[in-house]
């Protein structure tokens, strides 16, 4: 009898452990591709922020060339995507993207903001695609970005705006503070994909991300808790002896 009780107890503990792990895993709904994104909580509110501004031109995809995060949910089909956005601290040409329908880091649509030192000057709808599908994944610069529609704007840095993207069949519209600034008809009906944010040469602050399909919320994050997975590499200094050992290994 005691044996059975022990087995039941062990199984219960295991199930609780697995459940907790799955629950924790589901908390992380973003994957950092590049940059230094974090959920910031101060006394009044919490929000998503990219802290580095400078991006590095690894050139494997447009997203790694910016500072980008992508949703771990890769099957988001939506009719309306909305979030608040503040762009700050521009350095040279500031660029910000809210991207969607991403099936790859090189294949996505996006609403792009660009600005100079004094204000945000342009909003565009862009499409990124693979340039040559016969090349291996590690080929650099193997992507092509097409501007589908563009509009001149005059938006201020440091001021929060509400960005809304609506999709109705193949029609896409971009609204800033509920006023339409741009629209375009796509050549294809969007099948869904990941969503995300990317920026370079500026600090974006993002909050209250809600994605609807009709009236149903299919994805949301109010950035009230840490939700970003990041790649960490660990390194250490080699001693002269270790360097010699490595040399010997390589020469073998």
């Amino acid at each position, binding site marked *: 009898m005691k044996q059975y009780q022990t087995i039941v107890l062990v199984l219960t503990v295991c199930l609780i452990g697995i459940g907790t792990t799955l629950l*924790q895993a589901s908390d*992380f709904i973003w*994957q*950092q*591709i*590049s*940059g*230094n994104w974090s959920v910031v909580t101060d006394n009044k509110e919490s929000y998503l922020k990219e802290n580095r501004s*400078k991006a*590095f031109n*690894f050139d*494997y*995809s447009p*997203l*790694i060339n910016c500072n980008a995060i992508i949703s771990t949910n890769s099957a988001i089909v939506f009719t309306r995507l909305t979030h608040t956005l503040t762009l700050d601290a521009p350095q040279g040409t500031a660029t910000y993207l809210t991207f969607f329908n991403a099936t*790859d*880091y*090189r294949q996505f649509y996006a609403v792009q903001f660009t600005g100079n030192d004094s204000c945000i000057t342009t909003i565009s709808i862009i499409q990124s695609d693979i340039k040559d599908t016969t090349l291996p*994944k*590690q080929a650099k610069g193997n992507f092509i970005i097409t501007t589908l529609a563009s509009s001149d704007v005059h938006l201020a840095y440091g001021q929060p705006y509400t960005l809304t993207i609506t999709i109705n069949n193949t029609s896409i519209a971009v609204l800033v503070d509920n006023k339409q600034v741009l629209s375009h008809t796509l050549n294809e009906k969007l099948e869904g994909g990941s969503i995300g944010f990317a920026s370079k040469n500026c600090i974006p602050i993002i909050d209250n991300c809600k994605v609807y399909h009709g009236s149903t919320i299919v994805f949301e994050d109010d950035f009230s808790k*840490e939700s970003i*997975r*990041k*790649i*960490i*590499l*660990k*390194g*250490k*200094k*080699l001693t002269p002896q*270790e*360097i010699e050992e*490595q*040399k010997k*290994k*390589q020469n073998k």
Partner: protein
Amino acid sequence: MTQYRIITIIIASLIVTAGIGCTNDDTTELAWFNAAGNPINDIIWANDDQQWTTENGYADQTKTESKKVNALYGIVIASIDEGSGFREGTVIIKETSSSSLSLHEGSSEVYTIDSVSVDP
């Protein structure tokens, strides 16, 4: 006249020797050894002060070329293919428990990257 020639040669030799000495002292070199188990495609030191890159990545158990660096302090980032695409990761250095690293001027140092993980 011969004396002047000898003195001139000695002075010239001293200048050349001092010059070589100064160059050696100023050159700081850095290399990386990949022991992470996965290929590492690019390593960037101190905001693009120096970059190591190779088409198919530095395979596990290989060392990058040793390169001259100008910055003696900075952070290290690297790119790796995580299956769904190339991502950038920050290298946390054991000695400093941070992504920051200080080099000794004139030294030639080798650091190893010995693990890749997804945090948390």
